[in-house]
C-alpha cells in the first residue's frame, strides 16, 4: 500500500494542481505574508539614482503599458512616482500608449493628492504621444515645443512646473515603464546626449534579460525587474503595496511549481524502482 501512495505522486489530477495554484495566488490577497526580500543591485541602483537628484529636480516618467501587463507595470509606476513625490521632485508624466495614458493619469492624480502635489506647479501630465522615435528626437532639442499641451489640451508654456526646462540638458532623470523593448530607442536617441541624465527602465519580467547588456554598460542606470523589482522598490521606500502582495502570491506559486516537480520525480522514482 505504501508503495502505491508514492507511485500515485506522479499522477496527481490536474484539477488538484489548479486548485492549489488558485489557493496560493488568492490567499496572500487576504492574508498578507511576509517573505524575505532581497534587493537586487539593479533595483538599488535605480533607487540610489533617484535619491541623488537634487530637490526640485526634473524627472520625466514615460508609462508605455496597457491593461495586459497591469500587474507588473502598475506597481512600478506607483513606486517610481511615489519616490519622486517623496523627494519633492518636479514630475512630468506621459505615455506612448493610449491605455497607458489613462492608467498613468489615474495613478498620478491619486498620488498627487496623497503627497499634496499641485497640478501645473509640481507635476504635469503631457498625455498620449504617438510615434515614440519622433517624440524622442524632438524632446532632445526642445521640450516645451514637443510637449506644448498637456493631456487636457491646456498649454504647458506657463505652467510653473516647466520653469527653466528647455532641452534634455535640463532633465535629471527619465524613467520608462514599458511592456516592450522601447529602451533601445531611448538609449539610441536620447540617453547619450546628456551624460548627466539618469535613464531608468522598468520592464516586464520577460523583457529583463534584454536589459542586462545596457545595465552593464551604464546606459541604463537601474531597473525594476517586473513585479519583483517593484516589490523590492516598495520595501526600499518602506511602503509595501500591490507588488509586495503580488510577490507573495507569485513567490508561493513558484514554490508550488518547484514542489510539484520534486513530488512528481519522487513518484517517478518510486514506480521505476518497483518495476526494476
Amino acid at each position: 500500500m505504501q508503495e502505491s501512495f508514492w507511485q500515485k505522486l506522479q499522477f496527481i489530477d490536474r484539477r488538484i494542481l489548479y486548485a492549489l495554484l488558485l489557493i496560493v495566488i488568492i490567499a496572500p490577497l487576504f492574508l498578507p505574508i511576509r517573505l524575505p526580500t532581497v534587493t537586487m543591485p539593479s533595483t538599488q541602483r535605480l533607487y540610489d539614482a533617484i535619491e541623488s537628484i537634487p530637490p526640485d529636480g526634473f524627472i520625466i516618467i514615460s508609462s508605455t503599458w496597457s491593461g495586459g501587463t497591469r500587474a507588473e507595470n502598475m506597481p512600478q509606476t506607483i513606486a517610481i512616482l511615489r519616490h519622486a513625490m517623496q523627494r519633492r521632485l518636479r514630475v512630468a508624466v506621459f505615455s506612448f500608449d493610449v491605455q497607458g495614458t489613462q492608467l498613468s493619469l489615474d495613478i498620478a492624480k491619486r498620488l498627487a493628492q496623497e503627497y499634496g502635489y499641485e497640478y501645473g506647479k509640481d507635476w504635469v501630465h503631457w498625455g498620449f504621444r504617438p510615434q515614440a522615435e519622433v517624440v524622442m528626437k524632438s524632446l532632445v532639442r526642445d521640450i516645451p515645443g514637443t510637449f506644448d499641451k498637456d493631456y487636457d489640451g491646456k498649454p504647458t508654456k506657463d505652467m510653473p512646473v516647466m520653469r527653466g526646462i528647455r532641452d534634455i540638458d535640463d532633465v535629471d532623470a527619465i524613467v520608462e515603464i514599458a511592456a516592450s523593448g522601447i529602451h533601445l530607442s531611448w538609449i539610441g536617441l536620447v540617453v547619450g546626449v546628456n551624460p548627466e541624465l539618469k535613464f531608468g527602465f522598468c520592464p516586464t519580467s520577460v523583457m529583463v534579460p534584454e536589459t542586462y547588456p545596457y545595465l552593464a554598460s551604464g546606459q541604463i542606470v537601474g531597473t525594476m525587474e517586473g513585479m519583483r523589482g517593484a516589490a523590492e522598490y516598495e520595501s526600499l521606500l518602506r511602503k509595501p503595496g500591490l507588488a509586495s502582495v503580488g510577490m507573495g502570491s507569485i513567490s508561493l506559486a513558484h514554490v508550488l511549481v518547484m514542489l510539484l516537480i520534486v513530488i512528481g520525480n519522487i513518484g517517478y522514482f518510486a514506480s521505476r524502482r518497483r518495476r526494476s
Partner: protein
Amino acid sequence: MLEPIRQFFAPKPLDVVAYYVVGAVVFSILVIILLLNLPARLRKPLIALVTFGAGLFYVTEFFWPIDKNTNKNFLTDYLVSASKLGSLLAGMTLTLGILSLLRVHGRNIVRLRSGWYNSLALLTAMVAMVVFGLMDKYSDNATAKKVFNVLFEGMLINMDATMFSLIAFYIVSASYRAFRIRSIEATILMTAAFLVMLAQVPVGLALTSWIPRDGVWDSLRLEVVKEWLLTVLNAAALRAIAFGLGIGGLAISLRIWLSLERGAYFEKEI
C-alpha cells in the same frame, strides 16, 4: 515620355475624381474579362510574373545605390504607399474569413443544430460590436460610445486577459508532468528551469544572499548564475538557432519569389 503618364496618374480635383474611379473600374473589369479568357498555358507564367514583380520592388529598393545625403534611392519614397497597398490587399481577405464564420454559424442557426444558441450569440456579438464600434468612431452618440466601451474595455479586453492568464494553470501542469528525470535532455531542461525559477523569487534568492558580493564566490549567487545563463549560454544558443532560421527564411523567400517552390499549392495544374 514619362511626363504624360505621371500627369495621368496625378491626384485629380475632387469634382472629377468620380469619373476617374468609374473609368478605373470599367477598365479593370475589361482586364478581368480578358484574363478570364487567358489560355491555360499562360496562367502560371502570369502568376510567376506578378509574384516576381511584387518582390522586385522591395529587392530593388534595398539593393539600389542610395544618395548619401538623403539616404534614399528612387524607390524609397514609395515604401509607404507599398505598405499601404499590402495592408489594403491583405485586409480585403478579412471578408472571406468573416464569410466563413457566417456560413458555419448561420447554418447552425437555420438548422437549429445542437448549440445553435451559441452561434446566435456569436453573430449577435459580432453585429453589436460592428454597429457600436463604427458609431464610436463616426458618430457623436454618447450612448453608443458607452456601449462600445462596455463591449471593448469591459468584455473583450478582460476576455483577452483571462485567456492569457489561463497559461498560469497550464504552466503548472506542464512542468509537473514534463520535468522528470527521464532522460539526459529532460534532466537538463528541468535543472535549468529549476535554477532560474529559484532566482526569480525572493524566497529562492534568500538561499544564496548570504554569499558576499564582490567576493570570490560571488558567481555562485543565484541571480548571478541566472544572469550568466541568460546572457552567455542562452544568448549564444538562441543566436545559433536564429542564424539557421534566418538562412531558412531566406531560402524559402527566394524559392517563392522566383517561383521555384514545389509542393501541393505550387504544383497543381491550373
